[in-house]
Each structure stands twice: as structure tokens, then as C-alpha cells.
């Protein structure tokens, strides 16, 4: 008991045992995590750099006896119109569903829900967060059912005498973008709501007294105050959307043809449908580099204290 009171009043200087024990006492506790990350996360990333420059295949003669082919995979990639189309589709998908759709709608919801009736907010929040919590494959199934030729959307359109279509076939990109907006808006809404609740009220009141209209208060006061949250959210949802696979794959499979084939789907097709593992790894490397750049920006923007 005595020791406790002495310790409490002691200054912050390190206790004796810190100086006595050796430098490497962190190794024991950190070893399990470090070994797992090294073998199953860092290792595969490093290995990507190697097999992306080989002609490894899933089956056939080069499955086990693959060889180094230099930049051949990358030459093939940049000359392949399907690859270029995939890049464009990935950009459209990311801008449309994440930056414009999720962030835009999330901001609208966060702004409009301020100061509204608590029960109303609770119900609306539950619906929108519900779409986010549901597993991705279920979201894909729900939207597949909704947009199908026999699906609910056509029932509604038919009731109003509007043209019916198999929307997954006629407008695959619009379909997957809508589904991803539905699924991801909650995240942006939650981030923006939290940021907005930190905006000091007296600042907005002062602006109102000075004669600023609601639009001016939003643009001049609110948005600049939460711009850090906006920035981090935009980078985070961009990162998530760039690499999104399940929703598109289960709804359209990248089709019809290659009309909704974003980069992750293209990578999957090449590696696992056409058995070109080396080429698939080269596409994976492109995705990794894009992701790494965005992630670096994220770490920089966040500027957390560690």
C-alpha cells in the first residue's frame, strides 16, 4: 500500500525497471501480430511486385514453370482497350457513387436533419444506417431483385404506364452506382453529422445577427469549419469504392459484356476466369499503387498526433 502512495506522488521520470530491462521487451507482445501481418499481408504485397512481372498461370504449362517476362504484362495492359475502359468505368463509378452520391446525399441529410424532431431523426437514421449495416452480398441481392425485368421497379413503372426494362442490362453502370449510393450514404451522413455537431452554435448566431442568410452561413461558416472532416471522408470513401468488388460482381458480373467492368472485376476476370495469374497480379499492382497514393494523402490530411 505504501508503494502505491509513493508512486502516485513520484514525478513522471521512468521507474527503475524501465532502465534495467533490455531494449527489446516489446518483441514478445508484438510478435504474434507482426508475424501474421508479415506472412499474410506484407508478404503477398511484396510478392505482387514479383509475379506481376511473370507469366504465371492458374492452370496449364506455366502454372508451375512460370518465368520472368519483364514489362510484358504492363505493355499488354496499356494496349488493351478493355483495361482502358475499366479505368474509365472505375473513375465514373467512384466519382458518381462515392464523391457525388454518397458524400453529396450524406451532406444533404446531415444538414437537413439538424434540429429536427428526435423520433423522426431516429426512424430516418435507422433506415439509412440499415442499408449500410446489411452485408454487401445481401445489398447486391436486394438491388438485383429490385432492378430485374420481373423486379419491383418495373411493377411501379408499369403501374404508371412507363416503359419497363431489365435495368441491370440496359443501364448497368447507373444500376450499380445507385446501389452503392444506397449502401454507402450512411457512412458519410454519420461523419458529417458528427462534424456538424461540433460547429459552435454562437458562431452561427453571430453570423445570423450580422445579416448572413442560411446559404451564406453554410458556405462561409459551417463548411470551412468542417473541411477537414469532409476531406478525410472523401478520401476514405474513395479508397473503399475504388476496390469495391462484391456489389458489382453479384449484380452484373461486370456485364453485359464489359459494360460495368471496373478494375477489380477486370482483375478477377483475367486472373480467375482466363487463368492469367501473372497478368492479374499486374492489374492488382496498379490498384495497389493507386490505393497507396490515396492512402498516403489520407495519412497526410489526417495529421493525427501519435
Amino acid at each position, binding site marked *: 500500500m505504501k508503494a*502505491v502512495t509513493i508512486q502516485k506522488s513520484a514525478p513522471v521520470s521512468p521507474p527503475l525497471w*524501465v532502465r534495467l530491462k533490455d531494449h527489446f521487451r516489446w518483441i*514478445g507482445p508484438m510478435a504474434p*501480430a507482426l508475424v501474421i501481418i508479415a506472412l499474410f499481408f506484407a508478404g503477398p504485397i511484396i510478392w505482387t511486385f514479383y*509475379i506481376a512481372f511473370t507469366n504465371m498461370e492458374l492452370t496449364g504449362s506455366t502454372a508451375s514453370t512460370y518465368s520472368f517476362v519483364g514489362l510484358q504484362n504492363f505493355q499488354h495492359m496499356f494496349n488493351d482497350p478493355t483495361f482502358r475502359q475499366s479505368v474509365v468505368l472505375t473513375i465514373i463509378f467512384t466519382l458518381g457513387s462515392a464523391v457525388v452520391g454518397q458524400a453529396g446525399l450524406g451532406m444533404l441529410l446531415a444538414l437537413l436533419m439538424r434540429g429536427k424532431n428526435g423520433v423522426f431523426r431516429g426512424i*430516418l437514421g435507422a433506415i439509412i444506417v440499415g442499408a449500410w449495416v*446489411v*452485408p454487401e452480398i445481401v445489398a447486391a441481392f436486394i438491388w438485383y431483385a429490385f432492378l430485374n425485368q420481373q423486379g419491383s421497379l418495373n411493377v411501379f413503372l408499369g403501374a404508371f404506364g412507363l416503359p419497363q426494362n431489365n435495368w441491370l442490362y440496359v443501364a448497368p453502370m447507373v444500376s450499380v452506382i445507385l446501389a452503392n449510393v444506397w449502401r454507402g450514404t450512411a457512412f458519410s451522413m454519420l461523419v458529417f453529422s458528427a462534424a456538424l455537431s461540433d460547429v459552435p452554435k454562437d458562431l452561427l448566431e453571430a453570423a445570423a445577427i450580422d445579416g448572413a442568410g442560411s446559404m451564406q452561413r453554410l458556405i462561409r461558416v459551417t463548411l470551412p469549419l468542417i473541411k477537414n472532416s469532409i476531406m478525410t471522408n472523401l478520401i476514405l470513401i474513395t479508397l473503399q469504392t475504388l476496390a469495391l468488388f462484391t456489389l458489382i460482381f453479384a449484380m452484373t458480373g461486370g456485364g453485359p459484356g464489359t459494360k460495368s467492368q471496373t478494375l477489380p472485376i477486370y482483375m478477377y476476370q483475367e486472373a480467375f476466369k482466363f487463368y492469367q495469374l501473372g497478368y492479374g497480379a499486374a492489374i492488382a499492382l496498379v490498384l495497389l499503387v493507386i490505393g497507396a497514393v490515396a492512402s498516403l494523402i489520407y495519412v497526410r490530411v*489526417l495529421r493525427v498526433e501519435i
Partner: protein
Amino acid sequence: MKAPSVAMPRKSVSAALAYAVLTLIGILFLVPFVWLFLASVNPSASLAVTVPKSPSLANFKSVFTSDTTLTPFANGLLISGGTGILTMVSAALAAYPLSRYNLRFKRPFMYTILFATGLPVTAILVPVYALFVQLNLLDSFFGTIMFMTATSLPFAIWLMKNFMDSVPLELEEAAWVDGASALKSLRTIVLPLMLPGLGVVGIFTFILAWGNFFVPFILLLSPNKQPAAVSIYQFFGQYGSVAYGQLAAYSILYSAPVVALYVFISRFLGGAFNLAGAVKG
């Protein structure tokens, strides 16, 4: 102190407009769900939304009494549970030195961890597949759990370290004086004080693993090893005529644990923003 209401009528008009817009958005978000719930209680459901003539729980019942639907649930539980526990334990261990010791590499390490949380895991699956072929780890629960743990760990360590930082150091110093090892003071003092944080990390990892489709879809080949996420896809994506009512019931049962755990985290463990702790700039 309220702001002077200069334009009261205009304000109530804009409030009404806001309610109208919000209600419309809410309905649009709700509509895709409606079919799922109606179809699940309709034994003869199609893809179109219809009010069932004779609603029954027959779909749920047939899901519950068939091995083809129960095995994927057990597989999912094994994979996600294994990933959740392994991640929680190894992240707690790793977070201790990061939170308690003066390490020279702490800052670069934590920045690397944060950087790793942003990397697209989807992209790593191709090399992992190639690696697993060579190591004979394909189609094994062990390999799948290890990969999912490895990709969950960066965020888990990040969260765990922040939770641990909030446990005051003074409580431990007494134990140190009594000669307790790091492991003992972690187990008897730190972890009991951060049980909510421990729960958040474990449950959050479980939720993500439970909902993961792509990883088991690539790394597990035998149908009897695949979790529910993959079997749902195989039912609506690959086979032509489908018992949509049963699949809807199956989807609801598959989603239920995730929704329940999410509600649990946000109600009892301090809210979703513990999870998104890294988001707020």
C-alpha cells in the same frame, strides 16, 4: 439564447420543405427493403413486390431445417469467430508496448499501420491466391482465417492502442512495483478497464468478416466449406430458377447477427464513432 427569428413564416416553410425532402429520401431508401421482407413471408414469392396472399414462416422454417443452409452458417461462424478472436487477442498484445513503452519506432510504426488500413485488400487477393497454391493453403479454414486476421489487424491495432491510451498509467505502476510482468498487468489491470474497447474491436472484426464475400469466394473451393455470403450468391447468381422466398428469408437470417451486433455496439459500447475513431480529423 436563441437567434432572433426575423423571418418566422419563411422559417416554417423551409422546415416543412426539409421534412418533405427527408421523408422522400427515407421512402426511397426503404423501398428496396420492402420486397425482401414481403418475399421472406411469401411461400410463392417472385422478384416483384407483392403482398403475400397467405403469409407464413414456411420459408424460414425450411431454411432452418436443411443442412445445405445450416452448414454455411456454421462455416461463417467458424471463420468470422476465429478471425475476430485471433485479431482481438493479437491486437491487444501488440497495442500494449505501443501504448506503454517509449519506443523510438512508435510514430513511424503507427503511421504505417494507418497507411495499411487504406490499402485495397481486394487487390492483394490475386497474389494471395498464387501464394496459397504454393503453400498448399487453398481451401483451408486456417489460411482463410489467417488472411482475414492479417488484413483486419492494422485497424484493430490502431483502435486498440487508442483505447489503451485512455487507461491511466498510475493504476499499473503499483503492479509494476509489485513485480508484475507486462503480460500480467495487461491481463489483470488494463484489459478489464477497457472491456468496451476490446468488445468493439472483436465485434467489429467479426462483423466485417461475416459480411466478407470475396475472400472466402476465392480462397475456399469446396462448397461444404463456404460461408453464408458465398451460398447466397450461388443461389441467386448462378442457378436459373430460384426459390426467392427462401433466399429472402435466408438473407434476413444471415443479416440478423450483423444488425444485432451493430445495435449492441452503438448502444452499449460507446457508439459507431469509436469505430470511426480514425475518421474524425
